[in-house]
């Protein structure tokens, strides 16, 4: 499918701050998303990869207007989505849809399959005629590989994880969206089912010319599904490139750490050290300079000074690092 360089969605200097109480009196604020800018091209599938705490989920929620940013903006087709009229806001919900991580929790246990897939159509008054609506629901269920006869009257607890994610997809597609944001859609499914759902999503993407923003911590899945991958660390994007390029020639030490952590890749000369608790993103203290420097094996004085800028060091390959690899 053709991928223009037209930007469908842009995040500009986006910051999402969370305030947590520390002890009884004090508060601490963390920037889950830290001054982040990103352009998503129409028709592409862009992966947001990172550990938990990297801010990828928060970013995806800010994009679908579930979590309000503290500063900065999100622009869809050029329009600021946080400064919309309520009718534009409703329209935004038509154009941008989300698939959630937990197939068991993202479906209302009290709603039947039929109602769940029908609801978006009812809310946006797309099809008023009941019979035509039912036909559309059956169509959508077939599109996601389910047999309407069997599942229409079922409730979520009667379905398997894979089936539930398919329902979520059917529901998302009911509005013919332009952008689909998927937050770890397969990470809670058995590996044998993942590929089926990913292939379904790829097929739907092609068929309906969707743009996909795919959040995941699994590099293999990201490579399978995404054209480009953006690696996030502590609220910032540290590297972004075409998937193959990123995985074959990572420039940021954190990307390399992620790649080396995939089981089965024995790193040359690496000893089974690191029994001790390695600092992870769990530490909430603010870090001066590059936020990765405490864990970076190549960190130098410069890294502890100013935060590195996100620059295009090779065509199509951006990284925020003073000393990119190789």
């Amino acid at each position, binding site marked *: 499918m053709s991928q223009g360089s037209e930007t469908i969605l842009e995040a500009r200097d986006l910051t999402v701050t969370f305030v947590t109480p520390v002890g009884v009196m004090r508060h601490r604020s963390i920037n889950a998303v830290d001054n982040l800018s990103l352009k998503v091209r129409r028709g592409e599938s862009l992966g947001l990869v990172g550990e938990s705490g990297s801010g990828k989920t928060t970013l995806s*929620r800010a994009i*679908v*207007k*579930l979590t309000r940013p503290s500063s900065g903006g999100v622009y869809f087709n050029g329009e600021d989505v946080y400064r919309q009229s309520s009718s534009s806001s*409703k329209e935004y*919900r*038509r154009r941008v*849809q*989300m698939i*959630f*991580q*937990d197939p068991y*929790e*993202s*479906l*209302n*246990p*009290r*709603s039947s399959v039929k109602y769940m897939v029908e*609801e*978006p159509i009812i*809310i*946006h008054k797309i099809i008023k005629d009941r019979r035509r609506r039912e036909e559309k629901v059956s169509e959508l269920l077939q599109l996601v590989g389910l047999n309407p006869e069997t599942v229409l*009257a079922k*409730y979520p*607890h009667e379905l398997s994880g894979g089936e539930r994610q398919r329902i*979520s997809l059917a*529901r*998302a597609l*009911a*509005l013919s969206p332009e952008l689909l944001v998927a937050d770890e859609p397969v990470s809670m499914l058995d590996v044998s089912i993942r590929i089926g759902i990913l292939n379904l999503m790829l097929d739907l993407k092609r068929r309906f010319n969707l743009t996909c923003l795919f959040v995941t911590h699994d590099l293999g899945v990201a490579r399978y599904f995404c054209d480009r991958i953006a690696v996030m660390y502590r609220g910032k994007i540290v590297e972004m490139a075409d998937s193959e390029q990123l995985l074959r020639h990572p420039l940021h030490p954190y990307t390399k750490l992620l790649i080396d952590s995939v089981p089965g890749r024995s790193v040359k000369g690496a000893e089974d050290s690191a029994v001790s608790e390695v600092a992870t993103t769990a530490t909430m203290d603010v870090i001066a300079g590059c936020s990765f420097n405490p864990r970076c094996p190549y960190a130098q004085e410069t890294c502890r000074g100013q935060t590195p800028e996100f620059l295009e060091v090779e065509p199509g390959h951006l990284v925020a690092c003073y000393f990119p690899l190789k």
Partner: protein
Amino acid sequence: MLKSARAAWFRRLRGNRRLVVGIGIIAVFLGMAALAPYLTPYGPHQVVGRPYSPPSLQHWLGTDNLGADIMSQIIYGSRVSLMVGFAVAVVATLLGTTVGLLAGFYRGPADEGLMRITDVFLILPSLPLAIILAAYLGPSETTIIEVLAVTSWPLVARVVRSQTLSLRERPFTDAARVIGAGNRRIMFRVIIPNLLTLIAANAVLTITAAVAGEAGLDFIGLGNPSVVSWGTMLYWAETYALFNGAWWWIVAPGICICLVGLGAVLISVSIENLFNPRLRGR
């Protein structure tokens, strides 16, 4: 599809012994209340025998100090006691649920305000309140219903608010927002259906508290003593029964109150099994 769903529902009902027993007990008393005139030849105030006569074939539960049949009083009394119980439950549940739902859903200043009001009512002691209200409005069953409702709704509000707060954060609520559902739709289609089990369980328990509460308030004289209810029976029994050895006069209403309480509790703890098919046959 409808037929098999209904059949499965009944199967679940039958397999759930607690629920069946609970419903059975309550059904017996409801039947008693509804069919009162058919169940006993005597009126509750009718003098039909010797005063203080012990239980006999003619008077299953004996007679009171005036010679009226106690069994008839129990039967007719069930009407008042149950009515109070249900009335309080309905009012407290409706009011409490509305307050709790709005507070938990909208949060912010609405939550603060509503919860402060709730807290005030929560700490209101029912007894002094009852006495004061009785002084103003005169002792009657309506007063009792009002007092009990006023002191029961705050607990419901707190519980519903807690559950609402939790439901608000669940992924399926996010999912509803993302497809474009507004606040109203989310409240009515997402939050309330998932609150039903909790509301139902609570409502049933409120009945227990209300029946017992009614008896208690009657007992201390805040009800209308000329109305026959289990509570007023105890009111009269306190004065007359003990010194005349008429233990049956005290035991009978007491047991009825306990049984209704038991039935309600049994229903309350099993109600989740009815609504939530995932736990079946426990």
